[in-house]
Protein backbone atom coordinates (compact mmCIF):
# COMPACT_ATOMS: atom_id res chain seq x y z
CA UNK A 1 0.00 0.00 0.00
CA UNK A 2 3.04 2.23 -0.42
CA UNK A 3 2.05 5.36 -2.30
CA UNK A 4 3.05 4.95 -5.93
CA UNK A 5 3.46 8.70 -6.34
CA UNK A 6 5.91 9.42 -3.62
CA UNK A 7 9.54 8.63 -4.27
CA UNK A 8 12.01 8.53 -1.42
CA UNK A 9 15.08 8.21 -3.64
CA UNK A 10 15.99 11.19 -5.84
CA UNK A 11 15.59 10.47 -9.55
CA UNK A 12 17.88 11.13 -12.46
CA UNK A 13 16.08 13.43 -14.90
CA UNK A 14 16.53 17.17 -15.31
CA UNK A 15 13.68 18.21 -13.02
CA UNK A 16 14.66 15.68 -10.34
CA UNK A 17 18.13 17.18 -10.10
CA UNK A 18 16.98 20.68 -9.12
CA UNK A 19 17.35 21.65 -5.47
CA UNK A 20 14.38 21.38 -3.13
CA UNK A 21 14.44 25.15 -2.73
CA UNK A 22 13.89 25.70 -6.45
CA UNK A 23 11.15 23.08 -6.67
CA UNK A 24 9.12 24.38 -3.73
CA UNK A 25 9.47 28.03 -4.73
CA UNK A 26 8.57 27.39 -8.35
CA UNK A 27 5.59 25.34 -7.25
CA UNK A 28 4.32 28.05 -4.91
CA UNK A 29 4.63 30.72 -7.60
CA UNK A 30 2.85 28.48 -10.10
CA UNK A 31 0.03 27.90 -7.59
CA UNK A 32 -0.48 31.65 -7.28
CA UNK A 33 -0.35 31.87 -11.07
CA UNK A 34 -3.04 29.21 -11.48
CA UNK A 35 -5.27 30.47 -8.70
CA UNK A 36 -5.22 34.14 -9.70
CA UNK A 37 -6.91 33.95 -13.07
CA UNK A 38 -9.54 32.30 -15.20
CA UNK A 39 -7.72 33.44 -18.33
CA UNK A 40 -7.21 30.72 -20.91
CA UNK A 41 -4.38 32.74 -22.48
CA UNK A 42 -2.44 32.29 -19.23
CA UNK A 43 -3.53 28.77 -18.36
CA UNK A 44 -2.99 27.05 -21.68
CA UNK A 45 0.80 27.68 -21.97
CA UNK A 46 1.26 26.41 -18.43
CA UNK A 47 -0.78 23.29 -19.22
CA UNK A 48 1.46 22.55 -22.20
CA UNK A 49 4.61 23.26 -20.16
CA UNK A 50 3.48 21.04 -17.31
CA UNK A 51 2.66 18.18 -19.69
CA UNK A 52 6.16 18.50 -21.14
CA UNK A 53 7.52 18.47 -17.58
CA UNK A 54 5.51 15.38 -16.73
CA UNK A 55 6.77 13.52 -19.79
CA UNK A 56 10.35 14.54 -19.09
CA UNK A 57 10.13 12.94 -15.62
CA UNK A 58 9.64 9.50 -17.24
CA UNK A 59 7.03 8.35 -14.70
CA UNK A 60 5.58 4.87 -14.51
CA UNK A 61 2.49 5.55 -16.61
CA UNK A 62 0.72 2.43 -15.46
CA UNK A 63 0.41 3.63 -11.85
CA UNK A 64 -0.18 7.25 -12.78
CA UNK A 65 -3.01 6.43 -15.15
CA UNK A 66 -5.35 5.64 -12.23
CA UNK A 67 -4.78 9.07 -10.71
CA UNK A 68 -5.57 10.69 -14.05
CA UNK A 69 -8.85 8.80 -14.30
CA UNK A 70 -9.80 9.84 -10.75
CA UNK A 71 -8.90 13.48 -11.40
CA UNK A 72 -10.69 13.69 -14.74
CA UNK A 73 -13.75 11.93 -13.34
CA UNK A 74 -13.97 14.11 -10.24
CA UNK A 75 -13.49 17.34 -12.16
CA UNK A 76 -16.10 16.30 -14.71
CA UNK A 77 -18.58 15.54 -11.94
CA UNK A 78 -17.81 18.92 -10.39
CA UNK A 79 -18.37 20.71 -13.68
CA UNK A 80 -21.65 18.86 -14.20
CA UNK A 81 -22.73 19.80 -10.68
CA UNK A 82 -21.93 23.44 -11.40
CA UNK A 83 -24.08 23.22 -14.49
CA UNK A 84 -26.97 21.56 -12.65
CA UNK A 85 -26.82 24.09 -9.83
CA UNK A 86 -27.12 27.06 -12.20
CA UNK A 87 -27.25 26.52 -15.99
CA UNK A 88 -26.69 30.23 -16.64
CA UNK A 89 -23.56 30.41 -14.48
CA UNK A 90 -21.45 31.55 -17.43
CA UNK A 91 -23.40 34.80 -17.74
CA UNK A 92 -22.02 36.59 -14.72
CA UNK A 93 -18.49 35.47 -15.60
CA UNK A 94 -18.59 36.73 -19.17
CA UNK A 95 -20.06 40.14 -18.53
CA UNK A 96 -23.77 39.38 -18.54
CA UNK A 97 -24.32 38.07 -22.06
CA UNK A 98 -26.20 34.79 -22.38
CA UNK A 99 -26.31 33.42 -25.91
CA UNK A 100 -28.65 30.45 -25.76
CA UNK A 101 -27.57 27.75 -28.20
CA UNK A 102 -30.37 25.31 -27.46
CA UNK A 103 -32.52 24.37 -24.50
CA UNK A 104 -33.77 21.14 -22.95
CA UNK A 105 -36.39 22.75 -20.70
CA UNK A 106 -36.98 26.31 -19.53
CA UNK A 107 -34.44 25.82 -16.77
CA UNK A 108 -31.77 23.72 -18.46
CA UNK A 109 -30.53 25.97 -21.22
CA UNK A 110 -27.16 25.60 -22.87
CA UNK A 111 -25.48 28.90 -23.57
CA UNK A 112 -22.16 29.58 -25.25
CA UNK A 113 -20.92 31.49 -22.18
CA UNK A 114 -21.65 28.60 -19.85
CA UNK A 115 -19.81 26.14 -22.09
CA UNK A 116 -16.86 28.54 -22.29
CA UNK A 117 -16.77 29.12 -18.54
CA UNK A 118 -17.11 25.45 -17.62
CA UNK A 119 -14.47 24.31 -20.08
CA UNK A 120 -12.00 26.96 -18.91
CA UNK A 121 -12.74 25.87 -15.37
CA UNK A 122 -12.08 22.23 -16.27
CA UNK A 123 -8.83 23.25 -17.98
CA UNK A 124 -7.79 25.22 -14.89
CA UNK A 125 -8.44 22.29 -12.56
CA UNK A 126 -6.54 19.90 -14.84
CA UNK A 127 -3.62 22.36 -15.02
CA UNK A 128 -3.48 22.55 -11.25
CA UNK A 129 -3.65 18.76 -11.09
CA UNK A 130 -0.82 18.19 -13.56
CA UNK A 131 1.39 20.86 -12.01
CA UNK A 132 1.00 19.31 -8.58
CA UNK A 133 1.62 15.88 -10.12
CA UNK A 134 4.92 17.08 -11.61
CA UNK A 135 5.83 18.60 -8.25
CA UNK A 136 5.10 15.42 -6.29
CA UNK A 137 6.86 13.15 -8.75
CA UNK A 138 9.99 15.27 -8.83
CA UNK A 139 10.48 15.80 -5.11
CA UNK A 140 11.49 13.69 -2.11
CA UNK A 141 10.13 14.43 1.39
CA UNK A 142 13.44 15.71 2.73
CA UNK A 143 13.86 18.01 -0.26
CA UNK A 144 10.38 19.28 0.42
CA UNK A 145 11.26 20.01 4.04
CA UNK A 146 14.42 21.81 2.91
CA UNK A 147 12.44 23.79 0.34
CA UNK A 148 9.79 24.79 2.86
CA UNK A 149 12.53 25.88 5.23
CA UNK A 150 13.90 28.13 2.51
CA UNK A 151 10.58 29.99 2.34
CA UNK A 152 10.83 30.77 6.08
CA UNK A 153 8.52 28.06 7.43
CA UNK A 154 9.66 27.24 11.01
CA UNK A 155 11.84 24.16 10.82
CA UNK A 156 9.78 22.21 13.33
CA UNK A 157 6.90 22.31 10.86
CA UNK A 158 9.28 21.23 8.07
CA UNK A 159 10.22 18.28 10.26
CA UNK A 160 6.53 17.48 10.68
CA UNK A 161 6.34 17.20 6.88
CA UNK A 162 9.34 14.94 6.39
CA UNK A 163 8.60 12.78 9.46
CA UNK A 164 4.98 12.33 8.44
CA UNK A 165 6.02 11.13 4.99
CA UNK A 166 8.52 8.79 6.61
CA UNK A 167 5.76 7.17 8.72
CA UNK A 168 3.04 6.82 6.11
CA UNK A 169 4.24 3.40 4.84
CA UNK A 170 4.56 2.13 8.43
CA UNK A 171 1.09 3.29 9.36
CA UNK A 172 -0.44 1.99 6.16
CA UNK A 173 1.13 -1.42 6.84
CA UNK A 174 -0.14 -1.44 10.45
CA UNK A 175 -3.61 -0.44 9.28
CA UNK A 176 -3.69 -3.27 6.75
CA UNK A 177 -2.46 -5.80 9.35
CA UNK A 178 -5.04 -4.77 11.93
CA UNK A 179 -7.79 -4.76 9.32
CA UNK A 180 -6.93 -8.27 8.13
CA UNK A 181 -6.71 -9.65 11.65
CA UNK A 182 -10.04 -8.02 12.50
CA UNK A 183 -11.62 -9.54 9.43
CA UNK A 184 -10.20 -12.92 10.43
CA UNK A 185 -12.12 -12.54 13.70
CA UNK A 186 -15.35 -11.97 11.80
CA UNK A 187 -15.63 -8.19 11.55
CA UNK A 188 -17.49 -7.44 8.31
CA UNK A 189 -15.90 -4.66 6.21
CA UNK A 190 -17.42 -5.44 2.81
CA UNK A 191 -19.49 -2.48 1.56
CA UNK A 192 -22.03 -4.91 0.08
CA UNK A 193 -22.70 -6.76 3.31
CA UNK A 194 -22.54 -4.07 5.99
CA UNK A 195 -24.37 -0.75 6.20
CA UNK A 196 -22.62 2.61 6.44
CA UNK A 197 -23.18 2.96 10.16
CA UNK A 198 -21.84 -0.51 11.00
CA UNK A 199 -18.84 0.08 8.77
CA UNK A 200 -18.15 3.32 10.59
CA UNK A 201 -18.25 1.43 13.87
CA UNK A 202 -15.92 -1.26 12.50
CA UNK A 203 -13.55 1.48 11.35
CA UNK A 204 -13.42 2.78 14.91
CA UNK A 205 -12.62 -0.75 16.05
CA UNK A 206 -9.58 -0.70 13.77
CA UNK A 207 -8.75 2.84 14.73
CA UNK A 208 -8.21 2.30 18.45
CA UNK A 209 -5.39 -0.26 18.14
CA UNK A 210 -3.92 1.71 15.22
CA UNK A 211 -3.84 4.95 17.15
CA UNK A 212 -2.49 3.35 20.30
CA UNK A 213 0.25 1.46 18.47
CA UNK A 214 1.20 4.55 16.43
CA UNK A 215 1.37 6.87 19.40
CA UNK A 216 3.29 4.33 21.46
CA UNK A 217 6.16 4.88 19.03
CA UNK A 218 6.28 8.57 19.90
CA UNK A 219 8.47 8.05 22.97
CA UNK A 220 11.08 6.08 21.05
CA UNK A 221 11.24 8.48 18.12
CA UNK A 222 11.37 11.64 20.19
CA UNK A 223 14.02 10.20 22.51
CA UNK A 224 16.12 9.20 19.52
CA UNK A 225 15.75 12.69 18.06
CA UNK A 226 16.59 14.35 21.37
CA UNK A 227 19.68 12.19 21.76
CA UNK A 228 20.87 13.39 18.36
CA UNK A 229 20.43 16.97 19.49
CA UNK A 230 17.25 17.85 17.60
CA UNK A 231 15.75 21.24 18.38
CA UNK A 232 18.81 22.67 20.14
CA UNK A 233 19.76 25.21 17.47
CA UNK A 234 17.70 28.08 16.13
CA UNK A 235 18.38 27.22 12.50
CA UNK A 236 18.83 24.01 10.59
CA UNK A 237 20.60 22.82 7.48
CA UNK A 238 19.49 19.96 5.29
CA UNK A 239 21.57 17.08 4.03
CA UNK A 240 19.47 16.69 0.89
CA UNK A 241 20.11 20.28 -0.20
CA UNK A 242 23.01 20.53 -2.63
CA UNK A 243 24.82 23.38 -4.38
CA UNK A 244 22.75 25.31 -6.91
CA UNK A 245 23.28 24.06 -10.43
CA UNK A 246 23.10 26.12 -13.58
CA UNK A 247 19.50 24.96 -14.07
CA UNK A 248 18.60 26.25 -10.61
CA UNK A 249 19.81 29.70 -11.57
CA UNK A 250 17.73 29.62 -14.75
CA UNK A 251 14.68 28.56 -12.77
CA UNK A 252 15.35 31.31 -10.25
CA UNK A 253 15.13 33.91 -13.02
CA UNK A 254 11.94 32.26 -14.31
CA UNK A 255 10.13 32.13 -10.99
CA UNK A 256 11.18 35.64 -10.02
CA UNK A 257 9.88 36.96 -13.34
CA UNK A 258 6.65 34.97 -12.91
CA UNK A 259 6.20 36.34 -9.41
CA UNK A 260 6.55 39.92 -10.65
CA UNK A 261 4.08 39.13 -13.42
CA UNK A 262 1.65 37.59 -10.88
CA UNK A 263 1.80 40.68 -8.66
CA UNK A 264 1.21 42.91 -11.66
CA UNK A 265 -1.71 40.76 -12.81
CA UNK A 266 -3.35 40.61 -9.39
CA UNK A 267 -3.14 44.39 -9.00
CA UNK A 268 -4.26 45.19 -12.53
CA UNK A 269 -6.90 42.49 -12.99
CA UNK A 270 -8.07 41.16 -9.62
CA UNK A 271 -8.09 44.34 -7.54
CA UNK A 272 -8.99 46.87 -10.24
CA UNK A 273 -12.58 46.40 -11.49
CA UNK A 274 -12.89 44.66 -14.83
CA UNK A 275 -15.75 44.70 -17.37
CA UNK A 276 -16.07 40.93 -17.01
CA UNK A 277 -14.59 38.45 -14.54
CA UNK A 278 -12.80 36.38 -17.19
CA UNK A 279 -11.37 36.78 -20.67
CA UNK A 280 -13.81 35.53 -23.34
CA UNK A 281 -14.16 35.69 -27.11
CA UNK A 282 -17.74 37.04 -26.97
CA UNK A 283 -18.09 40.78 -27.22
Amino acid at each position, binding site marked *: *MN*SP*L*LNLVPGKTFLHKLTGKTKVRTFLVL*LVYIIMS*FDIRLLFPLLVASIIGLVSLKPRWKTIK*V*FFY*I*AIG*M*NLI*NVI*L*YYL*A*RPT*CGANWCGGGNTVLFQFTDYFTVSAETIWYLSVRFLK*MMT*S*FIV*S*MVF*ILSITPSEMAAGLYSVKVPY*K*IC*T*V*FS*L*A*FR*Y*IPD*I*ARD*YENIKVSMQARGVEMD*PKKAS*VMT*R*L*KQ*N*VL*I*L*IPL*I*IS*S*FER*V*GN*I*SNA*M*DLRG*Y*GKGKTRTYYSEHEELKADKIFKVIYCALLVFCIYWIISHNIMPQPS*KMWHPFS
Partner: protein
Amino acid sequence: MKKVLKTLLGVWNTKTVVVVAIGAALFGVLMNYAGIPIYTNTKLTTAMIIPVIVGGMFGPLPAFVACTVGNIIADLIGGWGFWFDWSVGNGVLGFIVGLLPLYGAKINEGIFKVKHAIIYSIVCVLGNLFALGIVIPILTTLFYGGELEVTMAQAWTASIANIVVLIVAGLPILYVLANRNSRRTNLKLEEKED
Protein backbone atom coordinates in the same frame (compact mmCIF):
# COMPACT_ATOMS: atom_id res chain seq x y z
CA MET B 1 -4.60 35.31 30.00
CA LYS B 2 -1.02 34.20 29.49
CA LYS B 3 -2.01 30.71 30.55
CA VAL B 4 -4.81 30.61 27.97
CA LEU B 5 -2.38 31.72 25.27
CA LYS B 6 0.05 29.03 26.35
CA THR B 7 -2.68 26.38 26.17
CA LEU B 8 -3.66 27.64 22.74
CA LEU B 9 -0.13 27.52 21.35
CA GLY B 10 0.98 24.31 23.06
CA VAL B 11 4.55 23.44 23.92
CA TRP B 12 6.64 22.79 20.82
CA ASN B 13 9.28 20.32 22.00
CA THR B 14 10.52 17.24 20.16
CA LYS B 15 7.66 15.12 21.45
CA THR B 16 5.05 17.52 20.10
CA VAL B 17 6.77 17.56 16.71
CA VAL B 18 6.72 13.76 16.56
CA VAL B 19 3.10 13.51 17.73
CA VAL B 20 1.98 16.09 15.19
CA ALA B 21 3.93 14.31 12.45
CA ILE B 22 2.43 10.92 13.28
CA GLY B 23 -0.98 12.54 13.61
CA ALA B 24 -0.61 14.08 10.17
CA ALA B 25 0.51 10.76 8.67
CA LEU B 26 -2.45 9.00 10.30
CA PHE B 27 -4.77 11.70 8.97
CA GLY B 28 -3.43 11.22 5.46
CA VAL B 29 -3.70 7.44 5.57
CA LEU B 30 -7.18 7.40 7.11
CA MET B 31 -8.45 10.02 4.67
CA ASN B 32 -7.35 7.84 1.76
CA TYR B 33 -7.96 4.30 2.86
CA ALA B 34 -10.61 4.43 5.57
CA GLY B 35 -13.11 6.80 4.02
CA ILE B 36 -16.60 6.04 2.78
CA PRO B 37 -17.42 8.37 -0.15
CA ILE B 38 -20.76 10.14 0.23
CA TYR B 39 -20.48 13.08 -2.19
CA THR B 40 -17.90 14.44 -4.63
CA ASN B 41 -14.67 15.29 -2.83
CA THR B 42 -16.40 14.51 0.45
CA LYS B 43 -15.99 11.41 2.51
CA LEU B 44 -17.39 10.04 5.71
CA THR B 45 -13.92 9.69 7.10
CA THR B 46 -12.60 8.68 10.47
CA ALA B 47 -9.61 10.96 9.92
CA MET B 48 -11.32 13.71 11.89
CA ILE B 49 -10.48 11.71 15.02
CA ILE B 50 -6.84 12.79 14.80
CA PRO B 51 -7.31 16.44 15.82
CA VAL B 52 -9.38 15.21 18.76
CA ILE B 53 -6.52 13.08 20.03
CA VAL B 54 -3.69 15.48 19.21
CA GLY B 55 -5.72 18.37 20.58
CA GLY B 56 -6.59 16.43 23.71
CA MET B 57 -2.94 15.71 24.38
CA PHE B 58 -1.17 18.84 23.17
CA GLY B 59 -3.68 21.61 22.57
CA PRO B 60 -5.25 23.39 19.61
CA LEU B 61 -2.28 24.67 17.59
CA PRO B 62 -0.67 21.21 17.24
CA ALA B 63 -4.11 19.95 16.20
CA PHE B 64 -4.29 22.71 13.60
CA VAL B 65 -0.87 21.84 12.18
CA ALA B 66 -1.61 18.09 12.23
CA CYS B 67 -4.88 18.65 10.39
CA THR B 68 -3.54 21.04 7.77
CA VAL B 69 -0.40 19.03 7.02
CA GLY B 70 -2.40 15.81 7.14
CA ASN B 71 -4.87 17.16 4.60
CA ILE B 72 -2.07 18.31 2.28
CA ILE B 73 -0.52 14.84 2.57
CA ALA B 74 -3.87 13.22 1.87
CA ASP B 75 -4.16 15.36 -1.26
CA LEU B 76 -0.60 14.43 -2.25
CA ILE B 77 -0.96 10.68 -1.94
CA GLY B 78 -4.59 10.68 -3.04
CA GLY B 79 -3.80 12.48 -6.27
CA TRP B 80 -7.00 14.46 -6.70
CA GLY B 81 -5.19 17.80 -6.90
CA PHE B 82 -4.61 20.40 -4.23
CA TRP B 83 -7.46 21.96 -2.34
CA PHE B 84 -5.79 24.39 0.02
CA ASP B 85 -9.12 25.91 0.97
CA TRP B 86 -10.16 22.56 2.42
CA SER B 87 -6.78 22.01 4.06
CA VAL B 88 -6.92 25.31 5.89
CA GLY B 89 -10.62 24.88 6.65
CA ASN B 90 -10.05 21.44 8.12
CA GLY B 91 -7.13 22.91 10.05
CA VAL B 92 -9.42 25.55 11.55
CA LEU B 93 -11.87 22.80 12.45
CA GLY B 94 -8.99 20.87 14.02
CA PHE B 95 -8.07 23.96 16.02
CA ILE B 96 -11.62 24.33 17.34
CA VAL B 97 -11.99 20.62 18.09
CA GLY B 98 -8.58 20.64 19.76
CA LEU B 99 -9.70 23.23 22.30
CA LEU B 100 -10.24 20.33 24.74
CA PRO B 101 -7.59 21.38 27.33
CA LEU B 102 -9.07 24.87 27.42
CA TYR B 103 -12.25 23.71 29.14
CA GLY B 104 -10.55 21.34 31.51
CA ALA B 105 -10.63 17.98 29.72
CA LYS B 106 -7.11 16.72 30.31
CA ILE B 107 -6.72 13.45 28.42
CA ASN B 108 -3.09 13.06 29.52
CA GLU B 109 -4.17 13.04 33.15
CA GLY B 110 -7.28 10.97 32.56
CA ILE B 111 -9.81 13.74 33.19
CA PHE B 112 -12.81 13.43 30.86
CA LYS B 113 -16.21 13.71 32.51
CA VAL B 114 -19.79 13.92 31.25
CA LYS B 115 -19.61 17.71 31.50
CA HIS B 116 -16.63 17.75 29.16
CA ALA B 117 -18.37 15.37 26.77
CA ILE B 118 -21.35 17.74 26.52
CA ILE B 119 -19.15 20.83 25.98
CA TYR B 120 -17.12 18.85 23.44
CA SER B 121 -20.22 17.91 21.44
CA ILE B 122 -21.47 21.51 21.37
CA VAL B 123 -18.03 22.80 20.38
CA CYS B 124 -17.86 20.21 17.59
CA VAL B 125 -21.17 21.30 16.09
CA LEU B 126 -20.35 25.01 16.35
CA GLY B 127 -16.82 24.45 15.04
CA ASN B 128 -18.15 22.61 12.01
CA LEU B 129 -20.65 25.34 11.26
CA PHE B 130 -17.93 27.97 11.55
CA ALA B 131 -15.12 26.18 9.71
CA LEU B 132 -17.12 24.56 6.92
CA GLY B 133 -19.95 27.03 6.68
CA ILE B 134 -17.92 30.25 6.80
CA VAL B 135 -14.16 29.68 6.45
CA ILE B 136 -14.16 27.23 3.54
CA PRO B 137 -16.65 29.11 1.30
CA ILE B 138 -14.68 32.36 1.82
CA LEU B 139 -11.38 30.64 1.01
CA THR B 140 -12.90 28.87 -1.99
CA THR B 141 -14.14 32.12 -3.50
CA LEU B 142 -10.78 33.74 -2.80
CA PHE B 143 -8.64 30.93 -4.21
CA TYR B 144 -10.68 29.31 -6.94
CA GLY B 145 -13.64 31.57 -7.57
CA GLY B 146 -15.94 28.57 -7.41
CA GLU B 147 -19.69 28.51 -7.53
CA LEU B 148 -20.90 28.92 -4.00
CA GLU B 149 -23.89 26.58 -4.37
CA VAL B 150 -21.75 23.50 -4.97
CA THR B 151 -19.17 24.40 -2.34
CA MET B 152 -21.96 24.96 0.13
CA ALA B 153 -23.51 21.59 -0.71
CA GLN B 154 -20.12 19.92 -0.24
CA ALA B 155 -19.51 21.84 2.97
CA TRP B 156 -22.88 20.88 4.40
CA THR B 157 -22.52 17.17 3.66
CA ALA B 158 -18.96 17.24 4.95
CA SER B 159 -19.93 19.05 8.12
CA ILE B 160 -22.75 16.60 8.83
CA ALA B 161 -20.34 13.71 8.23
CA ASN B 162 -17.76 15.34 10.47
CA ILE B 163 -20.23 15.88 13.27
CA VAL B 164 -21.31 12.24 13.07
CA VAL B 165 -17.70 11.04 13.14
CA LEU B 166 -16.60 13.45 15.85
CA ILE B 167 -19.42 12.46 18.17
CA VAL B 168 -20.04 8.79 17.34
CA ALA B 169 -16.36 7.89 17.13
CA GLY B 170 -14.68 10.72 19.02
CA LEU B 171 -16.42 10.36 22.36
CA PRO B 172 -15.64 6.62 22.84
CA ILE B 173 -12.01 7.17 21.85
CA LEU B 174 -11.66 10.06 24.28
CA TYR B 175 -13.14 7.89 27.04
CA VAL B 176 -10.83 4.98 26.19
CA LEU B 177 -7.72 7.17 26.10
CA ALA B 178 -8.67 9.00 29.29
CA ASN B 179 -9.27 5.68 31.06
CA ARG B 180 -5.97 4.29 29.84
CA ASN B 181 -4.12 7.33 31.10
CA SER B 182 -5.95 7.60 34.42
CA ARG B 183 -4.83 4.08 35.37
CA ARG B 184 -1.23 5.23 35.22
CA THR B 185 -1.58 8.62 36.81
CA ASN B 186 -2.86 7.99 40.31
CA LEU B 187 0.49 9.28 41.52
CA LYS B 188 0.58 12.99 42.16
CA LEU B 189 3.43 15.23 41.08
CA GLU B 190 4.67 17.41 43.92
CA GLU B 191 4.57 21.10 43.22
CA LYS B 192 8.06 22.46 42.91
CA GLU B 193 8.81 25.80 44.47
CA ASP B 194 11.06 28.19 42.64
